[in-house]
């Protein structure tokens, strides 16, 4: 299987390729249809709107008090024995984690699922320093074996079907070729158990960090998260600064929304709440726990009242599950860590609009993402805002703002605006357009890629109505 590198700059080519790949199309279609149905069913006996309202309020309250809560989180974590580190960007976070590993002479790191670590390319960074980083979430493990990146934030290997996974496991780990999912799961269990026992450091993400108690919450089904945070002697948790919540009681509503929105589950197998390293007298758990708080553009998003809503996200992936574009082009087409609608409103802040200018337009603005978002992020509005920023019509506080602005387009719209507000000039230009219709270009960029070029009518509708009326008057 080939190793492919996807980039947001090549979105259109990648999307085109994915659309032409029936395997990708059917893998995603089937998975997304199932997820949408399961989500709908699991919320059927809930007052979903009230719950979403509460979820949105909890996240807004956390953001409103963000700097204070981060300080409170830090103080309570430190009091619990969790060392807290701060990183301006992914590079700094990678360096902090690498140095922590090196200070323990670590050669092997086992990882629980963490999108922030994907965002900062932690595995590549550690490997460059001679430290092996192994993913332990089954989907992440398969994707890593296949030298790929996740195509979905909750289900990393959703782009692969059973036969493809069987091939990958056979080629990379020597298992039998089979369609028996239990056999493959058991094989991965055996392979990874040895690695858990021998890992020097466990790295995980965080779903919610509770300021009030200094607690790190992890949501999972497999148990690899618990293994990662319990078996190795050192646990390093890494998360974005926006993941903090104020109170412990803020957690149950968000957890209820997260599992149901993500996979249609009423609950996950494990909800793991960590409030410190192994204490004196305790017999297992890591001797050290570290928390790395990463900014990576989040504090810039935080400045703007409208863009701020992006930071409410609890990373459930419901927006991609319900997105007609994502379902058709798949996660890799976006070429970014976070694909789908959430990626399209988040990645421009992390990578700049120069790299990601096509992402805000990778949407039909159908509104499904906004309707299903458990914390009511107005994703379609944010997509429109980023489109405006890309053409230099926003507030200019997104990196790369104005990258899509062209003199030609600006001049065309200015002319249009002037004509539309000057009736006699408008009528004159319509008349001319009708007379010069033979000169209309037949190729008009992307418009004529799938359509015939528009040609002005010989006579405008106005003119036709006028002569029709005149004819009617003559008859009477």
């Amino acid at each position: 299987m080939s190793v492919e590198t996807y980039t947001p700059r090549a979105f259109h080519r990648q999307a085109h390729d994915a659309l032409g790949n029936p395997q990708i199309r059917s893998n995603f279609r089937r998975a997304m249809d199932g997820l949408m149905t399961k989500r709908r069913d699991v919320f059927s006996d809930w007052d979903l709107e009230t719950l979403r309202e509460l979820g949105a309020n909890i996240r807004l309250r956390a953001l409103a008090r963000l700097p204070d809560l981060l300080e409170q989180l830090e103080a309570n974590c430190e009091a619990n024995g969790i060392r807290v580190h701060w990183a301006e960007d992914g590079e700094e976070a990678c360096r902090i984690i690498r140095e922590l590993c090196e200070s323990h002479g670590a050669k092997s790191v086992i990882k629980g699922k963490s999108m922030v670590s994907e965002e900062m390319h932690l595995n590549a960074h550690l490997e460059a320093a001679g430290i092996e980083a192994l993913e332990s979430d089954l989907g992440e493990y398969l994707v890593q074996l296949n030298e790929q990146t996740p195509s979905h934030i909750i289900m990393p290997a959703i782009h692969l079907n059973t036969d493809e996974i069987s091939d990958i496991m056979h080629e990379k780990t020597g298992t039998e070729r089979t369609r028996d999912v239990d056999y493959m799961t058991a094989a991965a269990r055996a392979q990874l158990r040895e690695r858990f026992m021998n890992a020097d450091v466990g790295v995980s993400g965080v779903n919610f960090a509770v300021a009030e108690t200094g607690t790190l919450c992890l949501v999972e089904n497999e148990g690899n998260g618990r293994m990662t945070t319990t078996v190795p002697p050192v646990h390093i948790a890494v998360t974005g600064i926006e993941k903090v919540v104020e109170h412990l009681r803020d957690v149950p509503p968000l957890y209820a929304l997260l599992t149901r929105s993500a996979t249609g589950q009423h609950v996950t197998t494990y909800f793991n709440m960590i409030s410190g390293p192994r204490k004196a007298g305790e017999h297992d758990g890591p001797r050290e726990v570290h928390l790395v708080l990463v900014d990576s553009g989040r504090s810039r998003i935080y400045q703007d009242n409208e863009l701020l809503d992006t930071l409410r996200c609890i990373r459930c992936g419901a927006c991609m599950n319900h997105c007609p574009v994502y379902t058709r082009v798949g996660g890799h087409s976006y070429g970014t860590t976070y694909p789908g609608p959430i990626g399209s409103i988040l990645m421009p802040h992390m990578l700049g609009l120069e790299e990601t200018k096509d992402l805000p337009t990778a949407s039909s603005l159908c509104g499904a993402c906004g309707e299903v978002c458990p914390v009511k992020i107005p994703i379609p509005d944010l997509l429109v805002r980023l489109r405006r920023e890309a053409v230099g019509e926003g507030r200019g506080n997104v990196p790369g703002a104005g990258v899509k602005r062209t003199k030609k387009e600006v001049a065309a719209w200015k002319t249009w605006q002037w004509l539309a507000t000057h009736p006699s000039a408008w009528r004159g230009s319509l008349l001319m357009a009708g007379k010069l219709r033979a000169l209309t270009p037949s190729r008009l960029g992307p418009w004529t890629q799938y359509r015939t070029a528009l040609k002005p009518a010989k006579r405008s509708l106005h003119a036709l109505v006028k002569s029709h009326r005149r004819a009617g008057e003559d008859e009477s």
Partner: protein
Amino acid sequence: MSARDNILKRLRERTDGPLTAPDSDFAVVTGRGWSAQERLERFERWISSVHGEVIHTSRGNWTADLAKLLQAKGVRRLALGREHPVAAEARAALAEGEVTLIDADRDVETWQHAQFHDTDAGLTSTRGGIAETGSLWLWPTPDEPRLISLVPPIHIAVLDADTLEDTFFDVIEAHGWAGGMPTNALLISGPSKTADIEQTLAYGVHGPRELIVLVRHPEERV
């Protein structure tokens, strides 16, 4: 300035000015008002729906049911604590039997290999259960460490029926969790599972393949 100071400064000197925190009404996650019977039914329905097994037993007779269960599952080596009444009663009842009892109340480093390779099941108490989601809540202790509910292929959990509560929110509030969290607090709702291979459910990917809950009732149930 440090990264910490820079980040906090940017957040405090926000371009669009300070934000107002909205109030939160938690009514939607509490106040279910279920009867004990309804709680039990919900708990059992939900945990069974995710492959958890429920065995009803009594305070007086539960160790006999445990022995039967161990035999039925072919458990030869059982890891358990010592001090908790659940562990103490189980030890007393199983002392004469064929099941080897493995002390869980010792540093994992001294028996990690045996824990990962030669332990068939782990037995733990639970602090309570949640009816709405079919969840158990555990606060691991030196007596019953974190890994015995995770590493062995079977986890047997003992739950007293009268410790069931309606929702996760209710548990956190009623037991004052925010006033003092343990090193590790856990909700467990079923055996370990994954759907990462083409959405096909498989159990026991990293943690236990089976979760069996012995629900103890105050009296022998007819």
